[in-house]
Every structure is written in structure tokens, then in C-alpha cells.
């Protein structure tokens, strides 16, 4: 029986790969969990595309500045050492390769590292991209954090993305609730799998052809 990782366990696994001293931008949704589980031994400077470095956690209810929000439009705080700057400067950090690592959600990732995370239905919903393309193209390291398959059970890791791309060839590593995979010139290489999962089972839930590292790790839970 397949036991996918809980979101918090997945967040912990991602957090373990973010080095102390990193400048990081966490995408909206699932990736924001990562900040909550980074240990106190690491000092990580969080960037927000609306002009913040050194972003801290949400303020206590009823306190805080209503205009001090993150990219997801949620209230946040500023840590000592933080700074404010304007939008063009904020995106200069992203586009100029100054953000060490970003963690993004995804609809689809291809074995070439193509990322699709901004739109699925071009016809009936107005498209909206925000800073997704800037971040995917500009960050030094692009980590994707996602469920391994869609709610309907369809694979998200594909030979090619069928949804419109956010950026081509940018994803470095994918963290799903079933596995950790590197994107390499030879396609996806599985580094770790959820406890109890077999290679055959994982391949069965993945449209792209998988390779497996010689020493396969087990994704930690609980």
C-alpha cells in the first residue's frame, strides 16, 4: 500500500536541502510551509517579489501593517536586517540570478526540466501569471514541491508538458509526496522514495521514464 508523505513531512524534506545563509523565495501555496519547518540552526533570508527581503512570519492577530503583505497577499512581518525596495528592484533580484533557491508548486514538470505552473485552461478563465516566469527563469536553483499525481490521479511528471510552459529547462529537483527526483540530462533520476514504495509502483504513477540512483534513500516521515 502506498502511503504518500504528509505536506509537513514534505516541507521538512525540502527545508533540509536549503543551506544556511540562503536567499530564498517560496512560491504561493504548499511551498510557504517550508518556512515554518526550517530549523533554528539556519538563518535564511526570505524574499518577496513585492519588495521585501528578510520577511518574517505572520503578525499576531490584530497587529501588523495591513500593507505589509507577501506575494500571496497575506500579512507578514519584517525581521531585523530586513529591507524594503521597489518592484523593479525586487524583480532584479529574481531575474538577475541573486535568489539562491526558489520552491515552486507545479501542474506539470517535464523530464527536461520544463515547468508548467501558471495556467491549465486558456479558454474559459482569464490567464494570470504574476511573477511565476521571472522566478522560474531567474533563481539559481529551482525546486518543485508538489503531489506526485493530480487529484484525479494523473501523472504530473511527464516526457513533455501538455499545459502551457512557465519556463523551459529550469527545474533542478522535484519533491513529491512519493519521491525526490533530480532533473538530469538523462531525465528524472529518483534519489529517495516514500517508505514502502517500490520502483515499479513509482514508475506506474509517472509518465516520464525514471532512472534510479544507485543508493536509493527513504523519505523521512513523522
Amino acid at each position, binding site marked *: 500500500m502506498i502511503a504518500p508523505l504528509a505536506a509537513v513531512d514534505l516541507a521538512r524534506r525540502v527545508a533540509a536541502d536549503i543551506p544556511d545563509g540562503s536567499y530564498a523565495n517560496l512560491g504561493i501555496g504548499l511551498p510557504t510551509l517550508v518556512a515554518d519547518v526550517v530549523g533554528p540552526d539556519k538563518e535564511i533570508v526570505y524574499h518577496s517579489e513585492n519588495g521585501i527581503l528578510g520577511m518574517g512570519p505572520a503578525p499576531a492577530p490584530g497587529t501588523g501593517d495591513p500593507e505589509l503583505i507577501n506575494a500571496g497577499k497575506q500579512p507578514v512581518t519584517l525581521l531585523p536586517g530586513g529591507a*524594503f525596495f521597489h518592484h*523593479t528592484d525586487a524583480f532584479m533580484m529574481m531575474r538577475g540570478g541573486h535568489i539562491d533557491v526558489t520552491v515552486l508548486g507545479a501542474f506539470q514538470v517535464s523530464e527536461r526540466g520544463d515547468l508548467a505552473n501558471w495556467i491549465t485552461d486558456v479558454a474559459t478563465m482569464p490567464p494570470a501569471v504574476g511573477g511565476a516566469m521571472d522566478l522560474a527563469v531567474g533563481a539559481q536553483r529551482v525546486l518543485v514541491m508538489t503531489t506526485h499525481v493530480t487529484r484525479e490521479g494523473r501523472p504530473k511528471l511527464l516526457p513533455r508538458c501538455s499545459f502551457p510552459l*512557465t519556463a523551459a529547462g529550469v527545474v533542478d529537483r522535484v519533491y513529491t509526496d512519493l519521491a525526490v527526483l533530480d532533473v538530469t540530462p538523462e531525465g528524472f533520476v529518483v534519489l529517495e522514495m516514500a517508505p514502502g514504495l517500490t520502483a515499479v509502483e513509482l514508475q506506474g504513477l509517472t509518465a516520464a521514464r525514471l532512472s534510479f540512483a544507485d543508493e536509493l534513500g527513504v523519505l523521512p516521515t513523522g
Partner: protein
Amino acid sequence: MIDKRVATLADAVAGIGDEATVLIGGFGDSGVPVELVHALLDQGARDLTVVTNNAGSGERDVAALIRERRVRKIVCSYPRSAGSIWFEELWRAGEIELELVPQGTLSERMRAAGAGLGGFFTPTGADTLLAEGKEVRVLGGRRQVFEEPLPGDVALVKAHRADRWGNLVYRTAARNFGPTMATAAALTVVQVEEFVELGELDPEAVVTPGIYVDRVVAVRAP
């Protein structure tokens, strides 16, 4: 004698013509020049092209402009958000044109207008729907899209404090697009929470020098 202060919101938006391109600051509800937008609503200009990150929410500011059929076209990165009902309704009815631009490119295009550049190449958007019809060139080993400057006839900006020369400082993440939009428009109109005497703003900490500002009106914080 330079005195860019005007007495009323009506004075601040006087003379904005039909078919003007209006840059409107703000990211979500942070840094939106709400009162200036409502003054523009009262003022009557129509067939506007509005450049702003989001398409408004609920019934106020940009959403109200759209609801009143005053916006022919919107140029933005993220028109779809909780409460952007008026934009979505008109978009579905084909009554408003949408130019979707990655957020960093949106900001950089306005900066290019302010800096007198003829355009620039950026990797953001290459190999995506948003580069369709645009020149693509390989530079520095990457596929890059040519993007044109995006000037405004008018910018509506919210800042925190101003002096009579129009020097501005902002507050926290409300700074966002304001400083860039101020450089990119022929007429820059600013609402601030308070006026200060000339010389009171720290010359090391002025964010928008008055050279970019034409009119300033004080609007007390609600």
C-alpha cells in the same frame, strides 16, 4: 518657486483625457492609490488603458473603473484573484482587452520607459505563450525575448510623505510599483498621507526624487 502640492483630489486628476494610458500603483490591496482612482472615476475620462498589477477586487478602485466600462484595455500580470468579478465578467463578455505581462517584465518595461531605453532582452517568457509574436534572440547562451518600453500618459501613485518639491518616501511593502511608475509617465500624480517641510526628508532616504513628480495631494489615512 516649486510647489507641486494641489488642494483637492479633483485638482490632482484634472486634465486626464479619454484614451489615456494610466499606470496605477499597488499590489493586492497594498499601495493602491484608492482615492486617486475614485477621483478619476468622478472625473470622467474613458476608453482608458490601465496598467496595474491586479484587476481590482470587489467594487472599489480599479474594479469600479472596470465596472463603469471606463477601461478599454488592461495591462497586468495577475488579473485573476478572489473578488475580481468585474474584470472576469467583462473579459468573458469580450468587453475588455487583456495584455498579460510577466510581473517582472511589466515593471522592467515601465522602467525602460522611464530610463529612455528602446527596449531590452529578457529570458523571462521565452518559449511560453507570452512570447508569441515577439522577437527571440539567443544572448549569453539563453533564449531571450525582446520587450518594449511601457510608458504612461499618467501615473497614479500612493506614497507616505512628500515635500513641496514632490520628493517621496513610502511605507513598507506599499512602495511596490510606485517609484517605477513615477518615472514612466508624462504626468505623475501622487497621494500621500502627509506633507512635510522642504528639507525634512533625509536626502539619503528619498525614494522618488521630485523630478519624477508633478502633483501631490494629501489624503489622510482612513
